[in-house]
């Protein structure tokens, strides 16, 4: 027995094992190859058993050789193993492939009612002018809804708003949001800047009238207030609401609780005030180029009297507008009744 033989055997084992490792097909084969070569009863152990028959001086050399062969085999097997694992993982992942085009588990989207959207938009505009929200009940008494607003019992103005009364009760469904003005003024002293949105009721039902509809009312009261300031506020509002190119027009009008009273028109949002769209008469503004959007005026002295403010102590202005009309203009809704039919196909169109 010579060290050369052992050297040769180790070398040959190394080469053979590497070769079979290279050709291994899977992890199991690899593990067999490893065990055949390196386990306690494996080929390398068998070779080293013969170490004792060598001269002592040769043993370290052979031992080192065997160790390096073992390390090399383990390296090769490890490399190969990594390759197998990568391939196995890739295969496994491939099997997990998703059809990413399938729909999600998203919660369906709902929507806010256009009336809510418009009210919030208007509040947002006036909040920036320092107006704050005020609310009141929908069932009102005649004092808040009429008398305090300078609409006396036999005033023809009561014709303008046919009222729903409650059975066995002097109470009524408010015909306007103005009673909230009265309630607020009875409760607080000026300066006041309030906005009152809400449902109101009038006994009328056709294409352009609904027995319930929505208004938003604004009230500004201070020691001094002028018609010019009313114009300033409403011009700001009109441009914010309908765009900076919007023209605004003030016409004298009559509401018992203001004097002077005014009707406010904005240039038609459809035909941009031209009265015509593509040479066809504009139906929205009936060719006038103007849309009536709100009523306003300086608070009538009788109203201040009714809430107990001293004569001449305060001045103020008030304005009110119909939410449905604005919603119809803004979204191009042709029929008022659509707003109360709650057809899901209609509601969903106006997604938030």
């Amino acid at each position, binding site marked *: 027995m010579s060290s050369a033989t052992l050297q040769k055997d180790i070398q040959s084992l190394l080469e053979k094992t590497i070769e079979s490792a290279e050709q291994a097909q899977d992890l199991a084969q690899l593990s067999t190859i490893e065990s055949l070569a390196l386990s306690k009863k494996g080929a390398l152990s068998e070779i080293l058993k013969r170490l004792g028959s060598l001269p002592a001086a040769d043993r370290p050399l052979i031992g080192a050789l065997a160790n390096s062969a073992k390390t090399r085999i383990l390296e090769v097997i490890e490399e190969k193993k990594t390759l197998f694992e990568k391939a196995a993982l890739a295969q496994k992942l491939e099997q997990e492939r998703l059809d990413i085009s*399938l*729909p999600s*588990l998203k*919660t*369906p989207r*709902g929507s*806010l*009612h256009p009336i*809510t959207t418009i009210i919030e938009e208007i509040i947002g505009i006036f909040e920036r*002018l*320092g*107006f*704050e929200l*005020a*609310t009141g*009940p*929908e*069932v009102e008494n005649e004092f808040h809804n009429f008398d305090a607003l300078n609409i006396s019992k*036999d005033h*023809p103005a009561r014709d303008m708003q046919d009222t*729903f009364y*409650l*059975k066995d*009760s002097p109470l009524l*469904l408010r015909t306007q949001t103005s009673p909230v003005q009265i309630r607020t003024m009875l409760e607080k002293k000026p*300066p006041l*800047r309030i906005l009152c949105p809400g*449902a109101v009721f009038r*006994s*009328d*039902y056709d294409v352009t009238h609904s*027995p*319930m509809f929505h208004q938003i009312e604004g009230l500004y009261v*201070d*020691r*001094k207030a*002028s*018609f*010019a*300031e009313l*114009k*300033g*506020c409403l011009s700001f509002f009109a441009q914010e609401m309908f765009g900076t190119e919007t023209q605004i*027009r003030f*016409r*004298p*009008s*009559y509401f018992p609780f203001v*004097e*002077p009273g005014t009707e406010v028109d904005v240039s038609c949002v459809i035909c941009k005030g031209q009265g015509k769209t593509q040479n066809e008469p504009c139906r929205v503004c009936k060719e006038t180029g103007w849309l009536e959007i709100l009523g306003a005026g*300086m608070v009538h*002295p009788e109203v201040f009297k009714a809430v107990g403010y001293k004569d001449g102590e305060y001045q103020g202005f008030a304005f009110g507008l119909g939410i449905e009309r604005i919603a119809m203009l803004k979204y191009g809704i042709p029929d008022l009744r659509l707003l*109360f*039919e*709650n*057809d*899901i*196909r209609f*509601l969903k169109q106006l997604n*938030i």
Partner: protein
Amino acid sequence: MNISWNWLLSFFNDPSSLSPEKVARDLTLRGLEVESLQYLNKGLEHVVVGAVLEKQKHPDAERLSICSVDIGRETLQIVCGASNVRAGIKVPVALVGAILPGNFRIQKSKIRGVESFGMICSETELSLARESEGIFILPEDAPIGALFSEYLGRNDCILSFSLTPNRGDALSHLGIAREVGALYNLSLKRKEPAIQKKLPVQQNAKVSIQDKRCLQYYACWIEGVTIQESPTWLKRRLEAIGLRPINNVVDVTNHLLMELGQPMHVFDLDCIERGNLFVRTAHEREKLSLLDGSEIVLSSEDLIIADSQCAHALAGVMGGKLSQVQASTKNILLEVAHFSAHAVRKSSKRHQKSTDSSYRFERQIDASQVERAFYQAIELIVDEAGGKVSGHQLYKSDLLEETKKSEIPFSEQYLNEFMGTTLSHEIICKHLKALGFEIRSHSQDNKYFVRPPSYRNDIECMEDVCEEVLRAEGYDQVKTAIPVCTTFPLTSETQERARKISSLKNNFATLGFSEAVHFAFVSADQEKKWGEPSKAEHRVELKNPLNLDFSTLKTSLLSGLFQSLISSLNHQQKNLRLFEVRPVFSRTKNAEQIHEELHFAAMGCGRSFHHSLAARDHSLDFYDFKGFLENAFDTLGVRGVKFQGSGNDARFHPAQCAQVLIGNQAVGMIGRIHPAIEKEHKIKEPLFAFEINLDPCLKAGKKVKFAPISKFPKMDRDFSLIVPKNHEAEKVLACVQKNGKPLLESVSIVDLYEGEKIPAGHYSLSIAMIYGHPERTLEEQEVEAACSNILNALEKNLQVQLRLQ
């Protein structure tokens, strides 16, 4: 109100600078809104009067004739299909280029080989009648070549006004003319009546005024009138503004009503007992047959005109049938009066008769012009119907003084401050004078007194005068200004509430719900079905509902949501979710006040995610809705919400519904809609809903406070328990929580199982517990002790056992 342009122009000497469009626009900007302009000759611009000279048969068409028609400047060949066309008649001829009503263009054409240069028209084609047979044959005196519209008197334009109720003074041609005059600085032309000097005083008959609501009454007895058709000019004026001519006498009164705004009435004198009238309060239940054919039962609040036998007119509203002027009438009694606006309004409302007359009385007439109108009426009646005035009577009430206009103190400085303008003294005075105000200077301090004209009953205070000045100047002349804010408002409770409601709505929209808005009222039937059972005795009904579908105020929002859901299902819509936020109403216990509470309700059906693969989705169920509602409470910051089984609400499935409580306060209901209701409406899938009272929820404040985060490890313990079926899981959890204190931090349900291996009448509940201590690591024994404490309590209190594997 309709105003005839020609009639309006008759008030001015030189109206050449005016056009209907300009006046309509300018008056609208002065607060007298013109809604529409209508040219009566529209479509008749190229229609003339022609004479058929000759008629020949068409060689190739049996029914057609070839006519030569003289239209003055030339003779035209026209093919005509009407059977009544013949030589010698006068006809309206539409010339080539005419566009007849209905956008019908007349062109030069060949009809079966024969050229035709125009069309002979029927009344229908000219839009003068709905139906007509053959062509329109004109009277022989129609002038050949004249513009047909001129011949018909239709060269006019109608301005349709929509006036505000304060402007009673403008409800006539005179009233509008006054505004036009002030606007363009034109003086008004009016003929002064002269007849008053020649009127005999009545000797034989009398009108007795017995009610002080009659402020002025002028009567004239005229004998021997001839009732006939009115002359053309009068008929045309009335027809132009949409009134039907009746006879000369009635037409005269209608004409003056529309010209001056002063109502008047004529009685057939021979129907009046002895020619004596009484203006008096009606007797209760007295009857009166009116001109419109109706019979009314009077009340003791009505003001009437009667003779000694019976009532003849409802004052200021309508005359009676009995003394109506007819073709046979010979003698008449003319009434021109001034009744109190209040009285006329009351009667008009009570009997639901609104007439041109009552409309004007209600809005107050010009008290100073009643007498003058009376003389004008007599003159015109005598002119048109002949007859002889046998007597007249004038009555003015002492109360008339009170209607006189008083002076209003006025300050220029106030006006300019209040309006934000810088108008000079001269400008202000110019405008006021043009509008008929009298001005009296007081001193040098820019203060003066103004007196409105007699017809302006709406001017009462300085602000009214300001508006007049501003109106004349033009609202658009006021420069805009920015209000000076003297405070910044702090966030109020209302604001806070609104903010919460807004985030609630937004949250529900992202949860797939669409916001609905329904009316506040429903039918009694619907309310009975869907109303809140506890409020059944406290419903609020309307006294005057629009119809029976809107008779009762809602106590619950479910009816509306249900109706809309059904209707959407019927439109083949699926997977529906709706919510609504609005007040509901009930009477308080003592029934005197109305309780208004803000409700929030939601209803839905269908699938949870609308996913296309069924396996990945599920149908909405009770727990989805419970989750939605809990989500709402989270948004509002409400804690301590409990769900309590409750089976006595007929709207819900008795075993799948719960009362919702905050602490001990019931705030609403949640559950599946009763399957009987689903079946009744043929709904194939379950509907779920909840409704809560938002008021208590909005009061809850979300208090956010920092708590230290524990650094020490937690210990987990799981139990599988055998629970008797009569105990809800919630009860078990509550017992665990109570007895696990203080180390038990949380407990949750991980599984629920019934079936094999579980004893009958029981179910298995698996719970997971987390133990911990904020300041130290727990010892094993402490947790074991807590666990056995819990198990003991469960067994003792609820007969719950640990499940042995």
